[in-house]
């Protein structure tokens, strides 16, 4: 059974919000990982734990916290509303929910990649005239980019399948906030199991492609290190 136009629209919407969410967290996640790489001790482990919370909390709990943060009666929500921006029950809410849920995956992958870079090389860059920032962009990042990219793809894959936080913050509004994950749930609830299966198949294909890419990047990284 071929997907209909309506179903393609859901697929496109999902890809778009996942890509947007990933784009939002990429600079933030790389910065967070770079700062964590340079820090040690209790502060670091506290931060690392806090950043990883979305991995283990029930997504609905994260969604609820986000909903409270962005609700019209909250400080942030009313400030955004004054600017004419509505996050809750809007596509922007989907972006934020998926971004928050996939953020830890990106940070953790980037952190591992940065820590694999020989600190002696960074030190040498500094003796050759680089400040810490320049050494990061000229040595650390070029040597770690595969790992960062693998983490980005992983975060994107996670964003594709996000359900709990999204449904709490953005609701399940067909044509407005409904992603693939939400549509599958909606279809099974409304007796359209066949359509749900088609969407599930598409989701599986997308996720497979993304994970395959991330794995391939990881494998090449290992080969390079072995060389």
């Amino acid at each position, binding site marked *: 059974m071929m997907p209909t136009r309506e179903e393609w629209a859901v697929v496109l919407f999902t890809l778009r919000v996942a890509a947007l969410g990933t784009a939002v967290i990429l600079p933030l996640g790389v910065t967070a990982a770079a700062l964590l790489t340079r820090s040690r001790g209790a502060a670091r482990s506290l931060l690392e734990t806090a950043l990883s919370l979305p991995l283990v909390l029930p997504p609905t709990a994260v969604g609820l916290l986000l909903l409270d943060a962005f609700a019209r009666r909250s400080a942030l929500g009313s400030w955004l509303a004054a600017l004419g921006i509505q996050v809750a029950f809007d596509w922007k809410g989907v972006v934020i929910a998926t971004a928050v849920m996939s953020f830890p995956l990106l940070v953790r992958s980037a952190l591992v990649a940065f820590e694999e870079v020989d600190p002696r090389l960074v030190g040498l860059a*500094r003796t*050759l005239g680089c400040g810490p920032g320049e050494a990061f962009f000229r040595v650390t990042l070029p040597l770690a980019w595969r790992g960062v990219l693998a983490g980005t793809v992983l975060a994107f894959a996670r964003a594709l399948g996000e359900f709990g936080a999204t449904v709490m913050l953005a609701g399940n509004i067909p044509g407005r906030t409904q992603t693939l994950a939400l549509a599958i749930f909606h279809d099974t609830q409304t007796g359209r199991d066949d359509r749900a299966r088609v969407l599930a198949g598409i989701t599986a294909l997308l996720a497979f492609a993304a994970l395959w890419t991330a794995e391939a990047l990881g494998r090449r990284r290992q080969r390079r290190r072995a060389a």
Partner: protein
Amino acid sequence: MISLDVELPLARFPLRVAARLSAGVTAVMGPSGAGKTSLLDAIAGLRQVARGRIAIEEDALVDTAAGLSLAPARRRVGYVPQEAGLFPHLSARDNVLFGARGRAAEAAHAIEALEIGHLLDRYPSSLSGGEKQRVALARALAIRPRLLLLDEPLAALDVGLRERIVPYLLRIRDEWSTPMLYVTHNVGEALALAGEVLLLEEGKVEAQGPPLSLLSTPGLSREARGGIENLLAGRVAAHDAQGGVTRVRLAGGLALSVPLSVDLALEAPITVAIRAEDVLVSTEPVRGLSARNVYEGVVRGIERGAADAALRCLVHPELPEWVARLTPAAVAELGVVPGSAVWLAVKSHSVQVVSTGTGRPGAARV
């Protein structure tokens, strides 16, 4: 003049080094873990100094009393680590130019002097160990450093390759006149390159002085002097092609045979090394032995260790005492005590030529 007054905690002991080093090459020697690399790191700014002052001429890089610690980028100290430390994602050219920042002439000079022009488009993974070291040297020189730090730059290379890199180091020493701190375990390198040796042991300066006299001082640890106890200076006296030996005239007129090396110029000054375990000891005059070098001497002292004993013997008043390493059983069997007459025998193949010339072997071949 480099002034070092450095104090920083290491894992097993604190590093406390106070020394003034003349311009030129200083070989930093000492057992593994003595704090040599930590000292270089502190000078380069890669490790924080707990207390002290580091200065090149009058310019302080670190002065904890004044709250001064220049960022590594502002020290202009070139660093070449043991494994070259090239950036693997950059070509040799981009490695050399990494810190050059518009000093293209400096980079070009370094590329020419180290003869790496033909390697510039290659990546570090395709360079041999010696080529990597030359690129790393050029990279350090391209920042026009006020001081060069070399951390066992030849340790990872095999012996033949080492000999081919040493002339480049000599060229840098003579053409750039940049002061160098050169960490090495190799007596030959120290003798060939350095005007001075700084010996570290457990984070402290054990000794400082001219290489030959310092490295042949009795009482310095074996490891500190590169595992070679007997260092003797002499001149090339004759080549005996038929006999397969080159004869060296030691101080006091003693003759010593070394494996034939016809490329040594006659009358050239030469330093040879003999390991203490390669010296055979007899209490009677030696006859019918294949060893080419036999000397009569007197035992001056015996130092007993757990597994071996070191015999210090006077062979000639103008030569440093020879050290022979024996097992405690052999010492007991021979019955030697201080004052005993002994005959020392050394095969010519146990004699290693560690350097030709004293200080300026400008004639070294590439």
